Each structure stands twice: as structure tokens, then as C-alpha cells.
């Protein structure tokens, strides 16, 4: 084959044209832009938040693309083409240094996000997300508005729930510690309230509990469990001061349930995705022993002796 300039140029251009036709143009003309059932348009505020998201390169650490094999936040709904019909540019992302944000709206109330943007280590002690305090409060709030819209109608549903329980929890908090503790405990299903912590208090368990407390809780509840962690100024109702729980019939079951499910409306997140059962019992016992100074670990009723106990 003689490679003349004309052969090369005409050849490669013809190939490119054919491939663009098949791989880009054809899918473009046959695109299906039917919105999915969760889609709605974004409000102007949410749109401006999205601009801040793009400007600051959040997309290099956060995907918006849930796959069939995912477990983490948002994995309740696998992405569909119709979820993206309002996205220009589309922000699928190619790295998951941080979590997927497709369904982030309503996972947390606004105050959690604001504390997190100011300094992610406040709410997530091991986070490697850069701090965004320098954006200024105005932009942080706009950004939060966008984040809370992620997931569209499903996010709206979760946000409604956050707002309702935010009011309820503030009411309880403002009625004083006595009432607040009682109110919090009453939200836990009855069965759980009577369950003591089934794991005995052991030095090894305490060590593990402390480790998880430092990795997950310390930014809010503070190093001494008084609720004065660095996130406290941005969170309302503020993180619970564990030391007021003593003598108020807070069982291991209540603590477990609150850690597992979180307290919607307050900044208290749920940890069931992050911590398996034993880890929750142990961090709960750590809180009980060190901060509340009262633990029901391994107390009756206990059922058949556990096989692994000494």
C-alpha cells in the first residue's frame, strides 16, 4: 500500500466520520430523554448550588452514578437514564474518593451539611474532603440547597421528613434536658427499650469502642462526651451531652437503636451502613461506661449464655 498524504488524510478522516456517526451521532439522534419517575426540575437556588459544585470540582471526588453492585449511600436506587435529563453537563464522575451523591438529598438535615462543609472533620473525623469554609456562609447554604435536591422527588420526600422531625426535636430540646431525654427515649420502639447491652464490658471491647468513638462520634459529642465537639456551634439541637443521661433509664437497647437508626431531623446520623452489630454495641457500651458512667452490659435478661463468653 502506497501511503501518500492524500491516502492518509482521506483515510483517517473517513474512518473518523464513520465512527463518529455510529458512536456519537446515532446514539444522540436516538436518545431517550423521557424523565424518570423521580425527576423534577431544579429550583433557581438549586441550579446556582450546582454551579458552585461544578466550579469547585466536587465531581473529581464524588460520583452521581449508582450501579447494580453498590452498597453505600444512595444504593437504594440504581441510576436510570431518565434521572439525568436535566443535567448539562452530566456529572457522573470517574473517581469515588468520596461517596456517591446521587441520592444525598435528605440523608442529613441542613445543619449537618453546613458543619461538614465548614470542616468535614467536624462531623466525620477521618474524612479527607477539603474544607470549604472559605466559600463563605452564603455559598455554603446555596451549595447545601443543591445537595439536598439530589435524588429529586425522593430527596423531597426525605427532606419533608427531616423538616418535620427538626421541629419536633427542637421543641423537645428547648423544653429542657429532662424532657428531651424522655422524648428521645420514647421515640425508640418499646421492645428495644427493655434490652440491655448483650456484650459484657471487657477491656478489649472498650478499646474497640473507643476507637470507633474517635473515628465516628468525637467531632460532635466531644472527647469527653459532653456534646461540645467542634461541630457543636453549627448544630441545632446541639449534640447530646451524654453525662446528663445518668439515672434516666437509658438502656443499652436505646443507645443501640439511636446509633443504628440515627435521629432524623437532628444531625445525629444513622450508622447501620458503617458499623456492624458488634461495633455498635461496643461503642454504645463505651459511651455508657465512660460518659454516662452507668452500663447495663451483660445484665439480665440475657437468655442462653453466649458460646464465646469466658
Amino acid at each position: 500500500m502506497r501511503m501518500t498524504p492524500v491516502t492518509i488524510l482521506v483515510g483517517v478522516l473517513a474512518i473518523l466520520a464513520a465512527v463518529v456517526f455510529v458512536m456519537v451521532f446515532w446514539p444522540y439522534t436516538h436518545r431517550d430523554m423521557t424523565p424518570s419517575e423521580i425527576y423534577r426540575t431544579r429550583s433557581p437556588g438549586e441550579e446556582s448550588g450546582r454551579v458552585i459544585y461544578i466550579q469547585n470540582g466536587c465531581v473529581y471526588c464524588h460520583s452521581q452514578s449508582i450501579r447494580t453492585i453498590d452498597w453505600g449511600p444512595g444504593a437504594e436506587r440504581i441510576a436510570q437514564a431518565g434521572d439525568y435529563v436535566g443535567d448539562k453537563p452530566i456529572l457522573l464522575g470517574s473517581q469515588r474518593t468520596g461517596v456517591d451523591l446521587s441520592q444525598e438529598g435528605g440523608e442529613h438535615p441542613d445543619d449537618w451539611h453546613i458543619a461538614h462543609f465548614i470542616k468535614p472533620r467536624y462531623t466525620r473525623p477521618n474524612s479527607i474532603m477539603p474544607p470549604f469554609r472559605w466559600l463563605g456562609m452564603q455559598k455554603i447554604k446555596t451549595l447545601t440547597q443543591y445537595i439536598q435536591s439530589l435524588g429529586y422527588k425522593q430527596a423531597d420526600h426525605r427532606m419533608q421528613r427531616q423538616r418535620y422531625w427538626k421541629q419536633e426535636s427542637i421543641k423537645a430540646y428547648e423544653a429542657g434536658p429532662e424532657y428531651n431525654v424522655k422524648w428521645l427515649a420514647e421515640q425508640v420502639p418499646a421492645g428495644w427499650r427493655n434490652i440491655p447491652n448483650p456484650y459484657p464490658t471487657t477491656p478489649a471491647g472498650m478499646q474497640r469502642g473507643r476507637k470507633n468513638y474517635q473515628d465516628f462520634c468525637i467531632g460532635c459529642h466531644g472527647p469527653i462526651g459532653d456534646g461540645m465537639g467542634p461541630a457543636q456551634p453549627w448544630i441545632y439541637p446541639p449534640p447530646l451531652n451524654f453525662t446528663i443521661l445518668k439515672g434516666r433509664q437509658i438502656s443499652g437497647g436505646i443507645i443501640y437503636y439511636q446509633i443504628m437508626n440515627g435521629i432524623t431531623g437532628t444531625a445525629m446520623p444513622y450508622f447501620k451502613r458503617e458499623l456492624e452489630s458488634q461495633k455498635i454495641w461496643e461503642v454504645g457500651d463505651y459511651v455508657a461506661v465512660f460518659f454516662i458512667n452507668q452500663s447495663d452490659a451483660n445484665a439480665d435478661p440475657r437468655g442462653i449464655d453466649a458460646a464465646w463468653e469466658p
Partner: protein
Amino acid sequence: MALSASVNPERYRTARAFCLTSAVWFGAAASFGMIGAGYLIAPDFMANIGFIHFGKTRPVHVNLVLFGFVTPGLLAAAFYYVPRLLRTDLYSEKLGVFTAVLWNITLPAAVISLGMGYTQGREYAELPWLVDILIAILFALVVFNIIMTIRQRREKILYVSVWYVSAAVVLTGLTYSLGNVIWQPSTGALLGIPDAILLWFYGHNVFGLLLTPMGLAVAYYVIPRATRSPLYSHTLSLIGFWSLIVVYTHIGTHHLLQVPVPTYLKTIAIVDSVAMVIPVMVVLINLWYTVKGKLGEIHADIGAKFVFTGTIYYFFVNIQGSMMSLPIVQRVTHFNNWVVGHAHIGVLGFAGMTALGGIYYILPKITGKPLYSKFLADLQYWLILIGITGFAIVLTIVGLIQGQAWINGETIYRVLPEIHPYYVSRAMLGVIILAGAYIGIYNVIRSLYFNSGETS
């Protein structure tokens, strides 16, 4: 070095300008990479400097690496070998130098716009419209200069390197404009899923139609020259060239295998990604057989040493790439540092190594003097080789840790402490690469302008 006795200082001014451009921006790009790696270890270290936090440093790093270091480096060699292979002068050295100057205006414009948040938010197509236009103009100028040089050639037969480089610049000029949706100045994007399809068609062609052909062109020039042996096979060159253009353009959708895009696109992408072994192995067999029995000569020439190492990384990155395109593998490797490892193996191990090789191979020939320091070039070779090999190992391990943990249901937050030590070692290896880059700046500047060495 009998050839260079006739070096006239007016000749090769373009090649010189591009050598300098590439060396300097390599230092800058690696510095930004270093800042990025620092953020992943200590996110509060440089907190509240809005201009350089991770989300801004990363696109600056990637764009500088692609358009500041590798592309100009490969072009520098092209501006030397294209006229030589065609037995003529470059059509216009003035135009060439002007291109290099405009190039050095465009890059700071890119850094500043990304730093200030003027980004279109699409990976590899972030740059705002004005900078896109500048880059399109740059490619047009290069195309014009090369085509006109081909027209005034005195050698009838076009050598393989000329095929590759002319195809690369022409096709990239077009796919760049297409991929950046240049007809939509305000957003530079399409709506919804078609945006992702177009983006990755273009994004993959940055590697497939720019870095790979330009890198192979340098390899096709330097390797036979340095070993003073004819190319192994003309037929293999032909097959390698045409199959590259046909197959590589089809595989962009392998970036979207886990996204709701039409299935036929995924099927084509997977099949062609595996079929990539043809253009890759054909070229490598051709080049490696040319070297057969002559590794000593490769070893003796620092430029050829870089280029030959580049071909070895080319082998690795493509084998790895074909594997990563299989859905079963991509379940584990997608979204994590495995891909970052692959990216560095490809863009630094193959394209970057080759660009450096091209620069060091032509420097004595365009200045008429030996390199300022062969020792420093050798040192740089080892620093970068150690750095990139370390990157490949460390990032692959982290990728596997992340991928396996996620697939077992561990959350991203919980895996963060596990990968921290690897991020630290990556940064340490980064320092090694960074040192190599700075040494390169010094050596190239000394070789170009302050070289007291004897004219050979």
C-alpha cells in the same frame, strides 16, 4: 554526530521552543500533582486557599500534564523529525515559534481559569470556551505547518512517523472541537446521557488519537535510528497504523460500562477494547524486532533508553486497559485508584517517557552540542522510572483494597484509614518524580542556552 555539524542556529527553533515548553510545564504539572497528593493526606494543611484546593488542583494537574508536558514534548520531536524525514526544512520556523509562544499563553490562561472556577465540569474537557478556541487554533497552526512541510518535501516516500503524526494532529483538532462542544460557548456540554457518551468518545481519543500515535511516531523514529537498523516490517507498520485508527476510536464507552447508556455501545466498546491487542502487539512486535540483538545501542543513547522504556509501559498499559474493559474486572477497578494507576502508567509511563526520550534524542541534534549533562539525564531517567513503577504498584494495590472492600459492602468512609498509608507512599514517590522533573528543566535549559560543551 556527523549530521549535526551543519546545524544552523535558525533551524529547529520550533523544536527548541517546544522542548523548553515541555520541560517547564512538566515541572509545573508535577507540582500541581504533588499538591493534590498532599490534599489526600492532609486535607487541612493548605485549607482555605480557594485557588488550589483538591477540586481545582486536580484538573489543573491533568490538563497541564496532557497539554503542557506530553503533547509539546512529542511535538518538539515531531518538529525535528518531520522535516528530516522529508529532506526539507520546516515550512515555517516563524510560524512554529509563534505556535510555541501562543502555546505558552494558552497554558497559563488554562491554569488561571480553572483556578478561578471557570470550568465546564467535564473531565478532560474542563477548559472554558475561550481557551478551547485557543487550543483549536494551536492545533490548526500545527496541522498547517506540518501539511505544508509535507507538500514541499523532497523525499517521495512518507515514513511511518509522518503518517502517525499527521493523523494525530488532524484528528485531534477535530475531536477536541467536537468533544468540547465548541458550538455551545456558555456550557460546552450536551444534555444528559448523550453528554457522557460524547465526553468519553473525546476523552478516550485524547489518549488514542493524540498521545498514542504521537508517542508511537517518536518510537518509530528514534528506535531504528538509535540502533541503526531498518524497521522490521512495512506490512506490520501499515496494519498497526490503520487498525489503531479504526479500533481506538470505538472504545470510549468502556468508561461508561456501569452507566445506563445503550447496550450496543457497551458491546462495541468491550469487543474493540479487547481487539486493541492487534494494533498494540503489531506495533510492538515491529519495534521490538527492530531492536533485536541491539539493546546495547539503546542503552548507550539516553533518548532511546527513555523511548524504549516507554514501549514497555505501552505494553503494560494496554494489557491492563483491555482487562479493565471486561465488565467482571471493572466491577472491582472502576471508581477507585486502580484507574488512577492506569492513567499514570499510560500518560507518564508510556507517553511521558516517550516525550522525554524524544527531547533527549533530538537535543544534541538541534543544538549541535552534546547534552549539557548525560549524568543528569540518566538520573532523571531512574527517578522517573522508580517513581512511575512505584505509582503503578501502590495505586494498583490501593485500587484493589478499595474495590474489594466496596464490593463486600464496606462504606467508603470506613476504607479511608486503610488507604491512608498508600496515599502517603504515593506522595513520597511523587517527590521522586518531582525531583526528576526539576532536574529535567535544568538540564534542558542548560543544553539549549548555556551549554559550554564542545560543538561536535
